[in-house]
């Protein structure tokens, strides 16, 4: 069965704040169709201060769904609504000392129910914009929606490119068939080892008449691009920051879980590809350690 943390087991066996809440003034019902799990989150909000005085839940779901619900109520009690809305699904998972990758959607369900309950309190209509895909890569917890979106956004053609952009498939190889299926679904066929036409490398890089960026604009552009990549890394408890730009060499600092990760080189490769596309020129992305050596 699942390798649940002690904290998950403890919250499952002794759930906090379960059962109906009398006089709740914010109620959110939300489910994850992937697992068939569903949760009702009930809040008692102080109308003066918007502080959550009490929170209770009822959950139809597996051990980690019940534990995530219990953790969520513990986290948000005493917070204002705005503070509570800052709680991410990762916070819920962290509170429980982590969840198995297949079960991360349980924490997402908690986060979405919270948004629904707050919207209900505020008399707003809340629309879920979250899409839960099938988990494809178990090594790095990447789902089908994420892979498909990344393939579309970057016109990816090969397994290797998918691994560079999303990390999916960069581990045990078990999901290669599934990733190929997604590539076929998006591209209509499978390209065998022919990377996509490198328009960034040739056409765009040498496009005549393209105004040259000033140094300031160029660094701004690099920062914006990194900013767009960061949420993906943060999902895995990693991060990236810009350290130095020296001509074609861009030095970055991979921090958190990215540091020393087996996929560090692939991550840098993915960052480099994005920067090449954004800047329209060939650049080299190097770890900050290389700066020391330089």
């Amino acid at each position, binding site marked *: 069965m699942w390798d649940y943390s002690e904290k998950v087991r403890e919250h499952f066996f002794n759930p906090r704040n379960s059962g109906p809440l009398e006089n709740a003034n914010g109620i959110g019902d939300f489910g994850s*169709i992937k697992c068939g799990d*569903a949760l009702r989150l009930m809040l008692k909000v102080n109308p003066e201060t918007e502080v959550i005085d009490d929170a209770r839940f009822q959950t139809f*779901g597996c051990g980690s769904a019940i534990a995530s619900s219990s953790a969520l109520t513990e986290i948000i009690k005493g917070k204002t609504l705005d503070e509570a809305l800052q709680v991410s699904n990762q916070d819920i998972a962290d509170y429980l000392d982590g969840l198995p990758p297949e079960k991360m959607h349980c924490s997402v369900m908690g986060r979405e129910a919270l948004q629904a309950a707050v919207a209900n309190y505020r008399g707003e209509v809340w629309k879920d914009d979250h899409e839960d895909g099938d988990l494809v890569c178990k090594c790095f917890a990447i789902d089908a929606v994420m892979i498909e979106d990344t393939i579309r956004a970057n016109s990816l053609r090969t397994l290797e490119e998918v691994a560079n952009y999303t990390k999916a498939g960069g581990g045990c190889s078990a999901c290669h068939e599934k990733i190929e299926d997604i590539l076929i679904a998006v591209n209509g066929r499978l390209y065998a080892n022919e990377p996509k036409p490198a328009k960034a490398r040739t056409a765009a890089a040498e496009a005549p008449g393209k105004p040259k960026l000033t140094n300031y604009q160029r660094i701004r552009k690099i920062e914006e691009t990194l900013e767009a990549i960061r949420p993906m890394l943060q999902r895995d408890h990693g991060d990236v920051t810009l350290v130095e730009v020296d001509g074609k060499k861009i030095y970055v600092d991979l921090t958190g879980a990215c540091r020393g990760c087996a996929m560090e080189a692939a991550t840098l490769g993915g960052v480099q590809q994005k920067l090449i596309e954004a800047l329209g020129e060939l650049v080299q992305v190097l770890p900050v350690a290389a700066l020391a050596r330089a």
Partner: protein
Amino acid sequence: MQPIYMDNNATTACDPAVVAAMLPFFTEQFGNASSIHSFGSQVGKAIKEARIKVQSLLGAAHDSEIVFTSCGTESDSTAILSALKANPERRTVITTVVEHPAILTLCTYLEKENYIVHRLRVDRKGRIDLDEYKSLLNDRVAIVSAMWANNETGTLFPVEEMAEMAHEKGVLFHTDAVQAVGKVGIDLKNTKIDMLSLSGHKLHAPKGIGVLYVRRNTRFRPLLRGGHQERGRRAGTENSASIVGLGVACELAQHYMATENTHVKRLRDRLERGILARVRNAFISGDTLYRLPNTASIAFEYVEGEGILLLLNQQGIAASSGSACTSGSLEPSHVMRAMGIPYTAAHGTIRFSLSRYNTEAEVDRVIASVPPIIAQLRKLSPYWSGEGPVANPEQAFQPEYA
């Protein structure tokens, strides 16, 4: 507290007699059965004896019809791929929606290779429609593969009749009988079944040993090519210790066949009656009139299976669930879905699968343990209020789903 094992459809404990028979084959009887010297010939003789014991349990006409493999999955793959290779002009496979992944995943893959797969649907009790089956049989079908007994509900398919029907149309018939062997009387020589899969660890033999029965004169192509082992039908050095163990397990299974259908069946029925009398909104899934004697598949409405299993496990009781959340994948049980069981019940389906080692005292302990567990989880459920489901549960709680 002694643990109670009621998950025998997942795997069984090796019988001590099986282990005892195997041990010499790790030490003094280590020879390769193919060798000419005495180290090898002793092993060859033991394998021959084991083959005859398997033949006897299956009621096969010839011992040469028994091919040792590594597991049920290998037997299934060998059977289907052999039929397709040996009959290249036939590109259709007929199977059922409730097969084990060993068959279904292979079939999905075959579709990608442009084969046509028909999956027979089942009704609410898990039964197939023989008229629909008949209408699909024709000379473009390479093979039919239908399980003898379903692993989740124990429901039996009329495979002997299905094999007759296939034969009338000149179509090969394979059955995955891993759950049925040892619990259902099987006499292959008097059937039209061409191939049958057996798995050792479902009948108190070790894991890692299986059998594919291949009727004499069946067109066959091996999956593994190499040496001459198993007459070239399955190359690779024989797993002699496990083969010997399987032989003993088959002998024991034959001996205990009646026990399975009297003692074990009585325990299973006691368990079901005891639980249903104490827990409301619960029901048996599958075909209660035509199923394995050891399997109880009980759906508890408005709770989810994993929670039940975790709480049972806390009390030392091992069972399993057709729920989405306990298997490696998150998909709800394809068997429950195929039977049209609503989500709110399919998720709370627990399978207790007994063996000849279970006792009445164990059954009574499980009967006592289950009701409070279900009550505890229902108290957490948004579909439940006090002593019963909320009024119109499906309407009262309608979460938005992502």
